[in-house]
């Protein structure tokens, strides 16, 4: 656990970057520091590994003040990932990843072996180890950055806007990968971002900081969205707070109809204006409108019980029928959530 105990950082010119910050980053959790620029989130992060020393207050790492440890020694025990990856351009990827093991005095063979293992772990071909960083794409470099931070298996990981400089698709991939890795590794992660969506997606707990380095609120993402502490937090969360809250509502309780499907090629009969055509494998082929056989409209799907209500609503909006198609892990259709069913679930979400 990382504890900020009334930490203040004041610069010689009088600027206060962090103002009496009290915060705990729990062991095995992702704690996200989020806020506009000038809120002191990066400064706070850098005080943990003593790249910056606080003016007042203390930071404890599992109960021990960090200022009792020699900075280089402290830092070798804390993984660190930064925005542009910060890879060493003159070292091969494998040696970049092995940086901290080398600093800890591991022999070359063991350090490189460990580095190869980590490249695989972050989803890179180990053959990339022999390349130089500039031969990699931005997303790949960022993965190498994560592998490097993990190389000596530190219990704590600091991440300073690690995914801000890559394009949105790659960013989403990297975020998913981090969630997957964290499920395996259970590190204590402090993650800095200015992107509230990223904070809500990744954080077990989210600390919102305001300009001047004051903590506005710290809570789990769902609580943050439902009960913002004040106008600043409410405004920072943005306009779609209601929609985003649906991310935390499960589709498990959604009432599904199973009488709205028909085999592909068969004619739709009955009174229903829309029927869902299924392939031979039981996957969604498309929506059939009554009276227009052979014309298939796109079917929006969500994974029943695993995706959130936000995904279900999105699926409904993508279907001409206005219904969302529930599928299982193999993409087989398990039923249809009608508008009515979605409406019921939304009503419950608002009141429950």
């Amino acid at each position, binding site marked *: 656990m990382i504890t900020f105990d009334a930490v203040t950082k004041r610069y010689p010119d009088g600027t206060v970057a962090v103002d009496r910050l009290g915060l705990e980053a729990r062991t095995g959790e992702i704690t996200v520091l989020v806020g506009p620029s000038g809120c002191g989130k990066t400064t706070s992060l850098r005080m943990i590994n003593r790249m910056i020393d606080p003016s007042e207050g203390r930071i404890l790492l599992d109960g021990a003040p960090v200022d009792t440890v020699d900075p280089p020694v402290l830092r070798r025990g804390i993984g*660190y990932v930064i925005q542009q990856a910060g890879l060493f351009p003159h*070292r091969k990827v494998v040696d970049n990843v092995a940086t901290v093991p080398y600093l800890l005095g591991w022999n070359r063979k063991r350090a490189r072996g460990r580095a190869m293992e980590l490249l695989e772990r972050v989803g890179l071909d180990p053959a990339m180890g022999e*390349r130089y960083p500039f031969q990699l794409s931005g997303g790949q470099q960022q993965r190498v950055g994560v592998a490097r931070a993990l190389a000596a298996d530190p219990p704590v990981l600091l991440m300073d806007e690690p995914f801000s400089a890559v394009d949105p698709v790659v960013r989403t991939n990297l975020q998913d990968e981090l969630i997957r890795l964290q499920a395996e590794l259970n590190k204590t992660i402090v993650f800095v971002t200015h992107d509230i969506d990223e904070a809500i997606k990744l954080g077990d707990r989210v600390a919102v900081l305001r300009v001047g380095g004051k903590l506005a609120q710290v809570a789990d993402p769902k609580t943050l969205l439902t009960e913002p502490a004040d106008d600043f937090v409410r405004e920072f969360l943005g306009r779609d707070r209601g929609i985003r809250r649906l991310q935390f509502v499960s589709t498990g309780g959604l009432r599904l109809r199973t009488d709205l499907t028909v085999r592909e090629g068969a004619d739709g009969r009955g009174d229903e204006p829309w029927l869902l055509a299924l392939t031979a494998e039981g996957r969604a082929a498309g929506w059939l409108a009554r009276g227009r056989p052979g014309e298939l409209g796109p079917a929006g799907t969500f994974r029943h019980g695993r995706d959130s209500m936000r995904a279900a609503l999105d699926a409904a909006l993508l279907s001409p029928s206005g219904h969302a198609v529930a599928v299982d892990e193999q993409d087989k259709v398990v039923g249809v959530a009608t508008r009515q069913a979605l409406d019921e679930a939304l009503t419950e979400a608002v009141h429950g």
Partner: protein
Amino acid sequence: MGDGPPSLWEWIARNWDTGRAGSIRDLLSDHLLMSLVPIVAGLALALPLGLACIRWRWLYQPTAAVFNVLYALPSLPLFMLLISVTGLSPVTVIIPLIFYAMAVLIPAVVDGIRAVPEHVRQSAVAMGFTPLRRLVQVELPIAAPVVIAGLRVVAVSSISLVSVGALIGQGGLGMLFTRAYQNPFLPPVVVGIGLIVLLALVADGLLVLAQRLLTPWERARRAT
């Protein structure tokens, strides 16, 4: 060729190793020493000074100004000035050449290390490098191409400038020129120029080789 004055090759053969001071071989080794010492000493002095200029920013402008003025001074008056201190010895030639080397190498060191991207430096700090290790393993290797480019200029100009020392009797191969001036005769001039150019080419080639060995990533970068 034939009768009269000896041919170029005869002259070389006769003067290569006479066993007396002033043989071509002696001049060559004098020349090598007088140009090598400024290159090595120039680098050895420019490194810490350059690093100091990075550590204390205000130091760079005055340091650069001083060395630029030294660089602007013609070598001959500098030699004359130094004779009163160091006499008619190779040191009198070597000292100004060290200054010239530093004038080129201090900016090379400063520019090279300042070219290390800030995020690379920051991440080195965050990984737990000590300052010395960061300098040796991260900053200097990344600065190496710029520093070596400076060294190539210094090597060639030092090798060429040593010959001016002939005017005070300490010019290595340059002595062959003064000799030819006193007694119009072509072979010494040809040999002097030839050997000086050869030395410069060899020194430059060695530095290019060193750069290739020291900075393999630069070659990979050019290949892409």
